[in-house]
């Protein structure tokens, strides 16, 4: 490293190191505190912490409302993940490879739910369902989550397709494979990392989603809706334990996702 790069890392570097580390502390101290209090023996959130217990975690296993909402969240995600993948992957392929009139507009339409707040996406589907006299259930939640998660899959797959050499597909077609065969045997295998990555992301987005669920769920609660309902009565140590577990699950998923995308890149 030359003298020039040393100057680059000098005063400016020190400034950004301080700012960066401060922001990381801002992001992570609350999470550390949350985990700490999920093990606190007292019911209140006050320092100093008097004793430690795993009682709150043990209590979760006996909370039937919680377990039911957890099961519902899994059910919803189990619908949303395959639905978004089945709709999104071929659509992203068609949009990136086949030129046609109105393509640009269509791309933007698909991305709308990323920009429009979930509350409004949720209530818009609610209005539609009411117009056709359809009731609310976990199924309507799946429909809503799919609208919101479809652009996530499409964006990830499109980004991967951009780095995929189109000559591979040309070669396959020159060798006599049709478009569908080329898609299944040449394109799809190359999309594995993007597909796994977006499946994980859609799973967690659906699992954590609240705004659309809030408008579209019937009598059943998902996990975030259960937390939401409990929060109206105030924060409790049980909620802290649930939150700490959710953070742990997120960390595992990100770790898996990054591991996977790295191994795919090599």
């Amino acid at each position: 490293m030359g003298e020039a790069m040393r100057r680059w890392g000098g005063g400016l570097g020190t400034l950004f190191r301080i700012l960066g580390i401060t922001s990381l502390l801002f992001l992570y101290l609350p999470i550390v505190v949350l985990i700490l209090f999920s093990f606190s023996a007292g019911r209140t959130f006050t320092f100093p912490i008097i004793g430690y217990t795993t009682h709150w975690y043990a209590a979760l296993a006996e909370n039937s409302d919680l377990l039911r909402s957890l099961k519902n969240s899994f059910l919803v995600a189990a619908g949303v993940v395959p639905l978004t993948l089945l709709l999104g992957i071929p659509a992203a392929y068609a949009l990136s490879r086949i030129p046609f009139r109105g393509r640009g507009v269509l791309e933007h339409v698909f991305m709308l739910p990323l920009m429009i707040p979930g509350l409004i996406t949720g209530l818009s589907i609610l209005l539609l369902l009411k117009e056709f006299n359809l009731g609310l259930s976990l199924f309507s939640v799946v429909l809503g989550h799919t609208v919101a998660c479809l652009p996530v899959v499409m964006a990830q797959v499109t980004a991967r397709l951009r780095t995929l050499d189109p000559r591979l597909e040309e070669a396959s077609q020159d060798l006599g494979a049709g478009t569908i065969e080329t898609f299944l045997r040449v394109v799809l295998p190359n999309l594995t990392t993007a597909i796994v990555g977006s499946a994980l992301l859609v799973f967690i987005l659906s699992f954590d989603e609240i705004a659309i669920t809030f408008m579209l769920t019937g009598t059943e609660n998902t996990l975030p809706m259960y937390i939401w309902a409990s929060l109206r009565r105030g924060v409790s140590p049980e909620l802290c334990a649930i939150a700490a577990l959710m953070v742990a699950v997120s960390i595992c998923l990100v770790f898996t996702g990054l591991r996977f995308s790295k191994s795919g890149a090599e």
Partner: protein
Amino acid sequence: MAVQEGLTAPSSPERTRLWSQTGILVLFLGPAAAYALIFLILPYASVFRFSVWAVENYGIHQELTAANYLRIAENPLYRAAIRNSLLVAGIVTTASVVIGYALAVYIAFFSGRGQSALFFLLVIPLWTSFLLRAFIWRMILGRQGILNSALLWVGVVDKPIDVLLFNMFSVCLTLTYVFIPFVALPVYAALEKIPKDLIEASMDLGGSAWVTFRRIIIPLSLPGVVTGAIFTFCLSFGDFVTPTLLGGPDVLMVSSVIINQFGASFDWPMGSALAVIVIVIVATGVALATQLERRNG
């Protein structure tokens, strides 16, 4: 290509190719497009349609009227709600851009060997429940919360501070906390693409670190900033979780009013009209930001 078409479609290769392209398009894009039509375009259109109807005698009167919009324009409560949401979204976007940008620069250029671990730390919050990250602050900022008890314990204050929770401050703080990674990640992606040679060249030519930062790093990372700012603005503008959990009477936001129209007030047309206004504001924001990026790019 011509050889292959000659083999598979001897009669009229061009037409066959065109037909098959259309067939493939329908097959691949059709299902997603149909889904988007039914569950995205029609619903958003419903919002517009409901917004020009009105409630009369506890039923929805399906006749074209601008009454809802006029009421929004006249009613100070609705106007305040829209203003509050704009203000909160503006503050949160500015704060998230500044903090997220600094964080991204630190990780991209100055974190040394820890870079991949720090990148990991940047992604985790994005994969962690929004609701959960909002409720952490309710725990921390409350009158008998973690921060107050810590301050009392250490002896910085002798009675709990009341002004931390249920006001504009707690809403903006929490939303900024939530959206910093939304800015930091796209900015980091943009910074990663800047060749290190460019920085070295600028420094070699006698530019100071500050000049290099201002003239090279900032312009080249602008697309990432715009992406992050758009997301932050749109999502914080329409959020209802944070104002409900941490807001107070002085921060009535438009999302809470909409929920009220769909719940207790049971005035769906009015709620829809407010939703249309949110959509219009969000769309204007996106258009302005894209324009800004194009002019600078």
